[in-house]
């Protein structure tokens, strides 16, 4: 018997609003992309022709092959760097461990496309490393093409594998390893037979993130590809060439990208389903002290890996202070690049902050409400919101933006300006960062806190604002900072939506790189890196576990 006369309670209303917002901003664009892929661009009839074309023409098939190729190899590369790094930092006494993880985190959150073009400045046809070796008549391998992309992916994404594996290694009960040793395992056998399988779930989670991000990455293949096309550059190009008509080929390629990401996730979930290791941390892992050449080698590897990965960012900052004349570096140091940025791209700087901050304001409000619904309300609706929060991770930026444009530029939503579209795009794509951080914070708050407030006479909203929000504030701040970093660095989706009035910093950098204006690009990138660095510092201040806050 439901008691009559009670109004629907506050959280039921919130749940409804959240579901509505997610339906409009997430589900409809994705459904729209899906439907469009079955439409004939010329006649408007239903057809499977788009898929037939994509799966029969060599151009697309090669793109698919390329995407999987760089995705898989980039992921393997990330594992080859990340797993040893994690093991060394978790099991050996290392000089500068905090420094290593800080650099890894900076690499992780730095704008993704900076890596690509910084490597051009180093190893491109006119790069300074190339030029340096040329003087001695040595030809350095070119950075363009598949191996350059794989190199960038490896160095860009290994921090995911590193940080996740490290966290897991720290949580392996030492008794397991002791038992293995007691039963006669050599250290190597102990590592391969016990430790590695125990941290496999973490490794595979890190690897799957690398893979999904590689598939979705647009900046790197766009800048380094030189004819080597992946699905994201193909989808982007197809969208550009189909402007004016229905972007059916672009959305069909998009669907394939979503399918690959989802397939990867499903496979990983299936593998993990049979491996759940709960263990109590009664016996903490201890760190060993290495000596001699092993010690030197481990240090060289660990510091070398993070330094090389950090190199692109350092190069960019360095380049931004080089004296330029137009696009040409004329030797010596100067602030001309910043002056040009101030002259040519003040709008891009302003827009980036405006859009990112607006999106983050929305994200902060919504992630507080959503995390409450997910953690405290055990209904089907809250379960589906929890599930929907995974979707933005799986949908590449290009795809989401195409969905936005095809949904909101026509029909009932027509007339929404590019600025609003960008804010809403950043909002929906980066919302999961805020929700995840806030959710884990809220899980540590006992439900009795809110119940006590309600029992003392506070209505639900008041109890939430006076008690819950102050208690989850650290998580809320960390989540907002993370979504800010990722929102202000967004490139691929913005490229689809922006117009002359809504240029952002990443877009300006991308255009400057294409024009060979490396000084201007470097100055803009330095501003982005600075924002990112400040946010990372703030996250360190507010989060209890500084490493895992970024995952």
């Amino acid at each position, binding site marked *: *018997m439901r008691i009559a006369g009670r109004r629907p309670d506050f959280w039921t209303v919130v749940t409804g609003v959240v579901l509505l917002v997610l339906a409009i901003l997430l589900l409809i664009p994705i459904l729209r992309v899906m439907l469009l892929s079955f439409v004939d661009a010329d006649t408007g009839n239903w057809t499977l022709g788009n898929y037939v074309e994509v799966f029969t023409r060599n151009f697309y098939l090669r793109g698919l092959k390329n995407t999987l190729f760089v995705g898989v190899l980039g992921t393997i590369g990330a594992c080859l760097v990340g797993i040893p790094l994690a093991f060394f930092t978790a099991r050996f006494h290392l000089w500068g461990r905090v420094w290593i993880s800080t650099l890894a985190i900076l690499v992780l959150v730095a704008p993704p496309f900076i890596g690509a073009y910084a490597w051009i400045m180093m190893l491109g046809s006119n790069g300074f490393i190339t030029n340096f070796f040329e003087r001695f008549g040595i030809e350095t391998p070119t950075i363009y093409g598949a191996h350059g992309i794989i190199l960038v992916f490896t160095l860009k994404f290994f921090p995911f594998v590193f940080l996740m594996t490290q966290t897991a290694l720290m949580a392996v009960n030492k008794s397991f390893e002791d038992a293995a040793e007691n039963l006669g395992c050599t250290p190597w056998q102990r590592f391969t037979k016990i430790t590695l399988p125990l941290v496999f779930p973490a490794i595979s989670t890190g690897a799957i993130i690398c893979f999904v991000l590689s598939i979705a990455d647009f900046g790197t293949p766009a800048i380094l590809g030189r004819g080597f096309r992946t699905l994201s550059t193909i989808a982007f190009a197809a969208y550009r060439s189909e402007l004016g008509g229905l972007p059916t080929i672009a959305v069909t390629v998009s669907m394939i990208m979503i399918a690959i990401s989802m397939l990867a996730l499903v496979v990983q979930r299936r593998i993990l389903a049979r491996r759940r290791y709960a263990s109590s941390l009664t016996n903490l892992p201890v760190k060993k002290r290495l000596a001699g050449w092993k010690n030197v080698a481990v240090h060289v590897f660990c510091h070398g890996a993070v330094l090389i990965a950090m190199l692109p960012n350092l190069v960019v900052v360095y380049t931004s202070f080089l004296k330029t004349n137009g696009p040409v570096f004329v030797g010596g140091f100067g602030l001309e690049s910043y002056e040009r940025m101030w002259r040519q791209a003040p709008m891009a700087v302003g827009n980036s902050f405006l859009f990112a901050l607006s999106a983050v304001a929305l994200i902060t409000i919504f992630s507080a409400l959503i995390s409450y619904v997910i953690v405290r309300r055990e209904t089907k609706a809250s379960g589906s919101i929890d599930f929907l929060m995974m979707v933005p991770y799986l949908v590449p930026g290009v795809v989401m933006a195409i969905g936005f444009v095809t949904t909101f530029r026509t029909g009932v939503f027509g007339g929404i300006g590019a600025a609003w579209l960008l804010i809403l795009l950043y909002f929906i794509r980066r919302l999961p960062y805020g929700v995840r951080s806030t959710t884990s914070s809220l899980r540590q708050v006992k439900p*009795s806190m809110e119940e*006590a407030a309600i029992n003392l*006479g*506070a209505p639900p909203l008041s109890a939430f604002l*006076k008690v819950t929000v102050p208690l989850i504030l650290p998580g809320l701040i960390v989540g907002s900072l993370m979504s800010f970093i990722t929102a202000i660095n967004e490139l691929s989706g913005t490229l689809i939506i922006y117009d002359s009035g809504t240029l952002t910093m990443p877009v300006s950098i991308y255009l400057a790189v294409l024009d060979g204006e490396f000084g201007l690009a470097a100055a803009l990138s330095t501003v982005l890196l600075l924002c990112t660095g400040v946010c990372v510092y703030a996250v360190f201040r507010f989060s209890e576990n500084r490493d895992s806050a970024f995952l």
Partner: protein
Amino acid sequence: MASVDIIGIRKLYGDVVALSDINISIASGAFYTLLGPSGCGKTTLLRTIAGFHEQNAGTIAVDGKAIEGLPAYRRDVGMVFQDYAIFPHISVRDNVAFGLKQRKIPRAEMEQRVAEVLDVVQLGQFADRMPHELSGGQQQRVGLARAIVIRPKVLLMDEPLSNLDARLRVDLRAELRRIQQELGITTIYVTHDQEEALAMSDTVCVMHQGVIQQAANPLDIYLHPANRFVATFVGANNFLAVTRQGDGLYLASAGGVVANGGLAADGRPLVCGVRPEVVRVVPGSVPPGDEEVAIPASLASVSFIGREMEVLVRTEADEVVKSFARPDPAVIALQPGSAVTLLVHRSDLAFFEDSETGRRAT
């Protein structure tokens, strides 16, 4: 101060019956305890009264007025939580003032009431501390102060002492009871600790599987358990098999009629309950005195634990019987397997229908 009437409350979780037709009537100012093992429904009932759960059927009335239409924040029932639920981000004073602010009590009155109630729980000098600077016992005093300062019609306490260590628990339970009596506030108290329930309550209500087993004053609960579950859960108990011959009831393990007449006549399967503290263990074979039953047995083990000795014996019907008694050197010296006799006064035997919640047969 108010009376509470709970009429026909049912609560289902899917197919699982959490509360089944609960009827309780609590007099104004009474200390009423819900006692039972975990999962018996006591906390569910308390949270239903507080408004955190909605019942599937039934009515809760405070002072004759039904409250189930009110949301939890308008019910005016104070609650003390098992995990204290002291807001960690505001001071002790602000914690206590929280409910008063919610009720828009004028500032001067609010300050006075907060100061008064902090004196009642002996935390006056801690008003400006932050919760993490307080011990568990002090935090729970804040929890109590915060609940009573709003002068609720009813005070609900959900195992408020279970997170505290044993000694503190005993001290604080006396204090809780003192404050409750001073204020005369109707209190519903949930616990799984029978000692706590017996020591504090006007009425103890034993619950099991969502059903009230018995509600009575502590002495009756202990001395006259209404069914076998109550007899087992409150205090320790031995259960001995009963046989029937003609008009008489016999213990399977001893000769001689233990009961006559009606009890034996109606044919229900019965067991005999004997509290360990009424069982005397004596070495060797001893004849029973008047009104006594003698049960021959062999000694299984003796533990001397200071104030008393705990003796386990095995009867000839292969039943294990426990006895608590004053330490007796003659018994403690016995080897396992030695012959002993159990002596029990006939009036200390109780008979129950032979099932988990079998009723007491009289």
